[in-house]
């Protein structure tokens, strides 16, 4: 019955209930037909036979009542009573006739069809006879002659009685016919009932079989997939619960981590602020250093110019000293030569002996003059040398100064270069720090959103857990619905449940293993 199993539950139930309804309807039809077959004779009995009998009995009763009153009249009741009797008799007469007519019109049994005319005639005769008796009474009353009364009584006992017997005989026959008819109808009804009962029993048994089969198949085809779904759902719900727990835990950790990260980012941010501040200070300081270096360079250049001027002055001093030195040298040479001359003079004087004494004195004087000259020249030379030495010192000092200034200028240049490099680097560093700042800000935003997302995630996982619990609850409801109240198990994996036991409508006891009730295997059911 794969095609059956592929239908929706509604369709399956529809089909199953349609089958059951069809069976019920057919049983109802059978019952209806049977009841109809029972009802017909019953109808006949109730509608015709019984009312007919009743009408006939009424006719008879009216007759009898009429006779009661007519005979009552014979007893010479008082006038008012007699009037009553006569009214009653008239009424009864009319009623009897009416009843008989009613019977003849409505309830006439086929068996009595031949008798009804005779009956009517017999009644007419009887009514006429009794009417005659009453007339005789009237005459009695009128005349007061008792012969009329006696005649009436004799009439009643005689002719009327014969006619009465005839009527009664006919009536009895008719009643008997009616009763026979009723009995026959009842027998027919009984037979029909028996037939109907048999049919109903058979159809009930068939219906039972079909119903059980259909319900088994239906239930199985509904609960089996449901069981699978249940086990799947339960397992899924467990997994979802577990997963949502994990997600909750992970979200918690993520939230924690995000908080820590946010704190770290705060620290990093403040550190960056510090660094940024320091960088700005660096840039400012390096610019100041650059300015100072430029000022130093200017001063150094001015110093170099001054040193140049000083060098020039010193050169001029040197030149002057050189010139003076030359002059002094000349003087010195002159002194030297003079000295030599004096010595030569002394020599000649010595060789001249006494004659040269005066000459020796002159020579001596000349020598001392020359010596003085030489001394003066020497002193001057010494002074000049000192001056030259000083100038040389000045020159070397100014050279040193120039060198130092050059060094200063060089250093200042390097400082300027370094300062500008520092400034550039500081600017780049500032830009870099800005980038880092914005990156950190972004990281902060991301962390915030991470934290928010983690919060959302945590709450979502809480919801998920709740949903999983709800799902579990619904699964349990489903289990209870599918398997019954006692089968609902909490915390147990539904997948491991044994072959499901379910209550069918036909079984009064729940948890009956259908395998035992109906030895059907899946293979058998698969053929459906």
């Amino acid at each position: 019955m794969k095609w059956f199993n592929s239908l929706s539950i509604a369709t399956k139930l529809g089909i199953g209930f349609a089958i059951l309804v069809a069976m019920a309807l057919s049983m109802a039809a059978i019952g209806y037909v049977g009841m109809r077959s029972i009802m017909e004779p019953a109808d006949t009995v109730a509608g015709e036979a019984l009312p007919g009998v009743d009408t006939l009995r009424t006719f008879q009763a009216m007759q009898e009542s009429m006779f009661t009153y007519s005979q009552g009249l014979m007893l010479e009741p008082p006038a008012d009573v007699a009037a009553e009797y006569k009214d009653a008799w008239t009424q009864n007469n009319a009623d009897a006739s009416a009843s008989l007519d009613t019977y003849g019109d409505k309830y006439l049994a086929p068996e009595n069809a031949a008798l009804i005319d005779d009956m009517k005639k017999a009644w007419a005769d009887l009514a006429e006879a009794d009417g005659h008796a009453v007339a005789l009474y009237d005459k009695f009353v009128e005349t007061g002659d008792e012969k009329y009364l006696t005649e009436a009584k004799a009439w009643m006992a005689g002719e009327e009685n014969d006619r009465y017997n005839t009527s009664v005989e006919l009536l009895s026959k008719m009643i008997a016919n009616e009763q026979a008819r009723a009995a026959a109808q009842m027998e027919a009804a009984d037979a029909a009932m028996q037939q109907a009962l048999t049919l109903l029993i058979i159809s009930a048994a068939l219906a039972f079989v079909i119903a059980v089969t259909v319900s088994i198949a239906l239930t199985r085809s509904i609960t089996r997939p449901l069981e699978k779904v249940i086990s799947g759902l339960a397992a899924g719900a467990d997994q979802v619960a577990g997963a949502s727990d994990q997600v909750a835990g992970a979200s918690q950790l993520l939230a924690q981590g995000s908080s820590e990260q946010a704190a770290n980012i705060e620290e990093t941010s403040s550190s960056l602020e510090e660094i940024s501040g320091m960088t700005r200070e660096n840039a400012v300081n390096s610019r100041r250093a650059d300015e100072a270096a430029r000022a130093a360079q200017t001063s150094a250049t001015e110093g170099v110019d001054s040193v140049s001027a000083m060098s020039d002055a010193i050169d001029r001093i040197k030149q002057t000293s050189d010139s003076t030195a030359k002059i002094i040298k000349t003087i010195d040479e002159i002194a030297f030569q003079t000295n030599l001359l004096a010595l030569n003079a002394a020599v000649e004087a010595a060789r001249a002996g006494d004659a040269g004494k005066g000459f020796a004195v002159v020579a001596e004087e000349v020598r001392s003059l020359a010596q003085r000259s030489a001394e003066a020249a020497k002193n001057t030379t010494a002074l000049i040398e000192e001056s030259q030495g000083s100038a040389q010192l000045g020159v070397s000092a100014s050279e040193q100064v120039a060198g130092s200034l050059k060094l200063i200028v060089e250093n200042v240049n390097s400082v300027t270069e370094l300062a500008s490099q520092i400034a550039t680097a500081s600017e780049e560093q500032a830009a870099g720090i800005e980038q880092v700042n914005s990156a950190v800000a972004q990281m902060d935003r991301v962390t915030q959103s991470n934290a928010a997302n983690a919060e959302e995630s945590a709450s979502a996982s809480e919801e998920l857990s709740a949903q999983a619990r709800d799902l579990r609850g619904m699964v349990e409801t489903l289990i209870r619905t599918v398997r019954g109240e006692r089968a609902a198990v909490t915390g147990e994996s539904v997948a491991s449940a044994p072959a499901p036991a379910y209550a069918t409508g036909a079984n009064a006891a729940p948890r009956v293993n259908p395998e035992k009730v109906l030895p059907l295997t899946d293979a058998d059911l698969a053929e459906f």
Partner: protein
Amino acid sequence: MTETTNAPAHAGRYLTFSVADEVYGLDILRVQEIVGMIPLTRVPRLPDSVAGVVNLRGRIIPVLELRRSLGLPPVVHSERTCIIIVRSELDGVTRVTGLIVDGVSDVVDLAPVDIEDTPEFGQSIETPYLSGIGRHEERILLLLDIDTILANCTVDVADIDQSPAA
């Protein structure tokens, strides 16, 4: 090197001059002239002590490098360098020779008390060129024996001047 006996130094006037930071004395009577340094003409194939010849007022005079004669290392001549023209008699020939000295100082009088003989330095050490040691104003003067100096160089003078030095 010919050995000659030193004539002992005697009192008198001495011309003091310096050679290699030492002050020497020369008998003024032997001195003819003192001139400053004048251009020197070198003559090849002469001993090292002979520096060359100079032209002094038309006269060609051989010049000795006294440093070399004394065995001292030579130095570059300065403006103080003088040439002492000395006269010597040798074998009846009057020779005029120049001595290159580092500088001349003074003419001094030495009394006999200021003069002493050359001290003995030892048997094998001789100072033939010193005629004595003089003292003047706390200074030691090495009194040169000019003849010994001159005798140690064999130079033939082209011209012999008999006229007194001017």
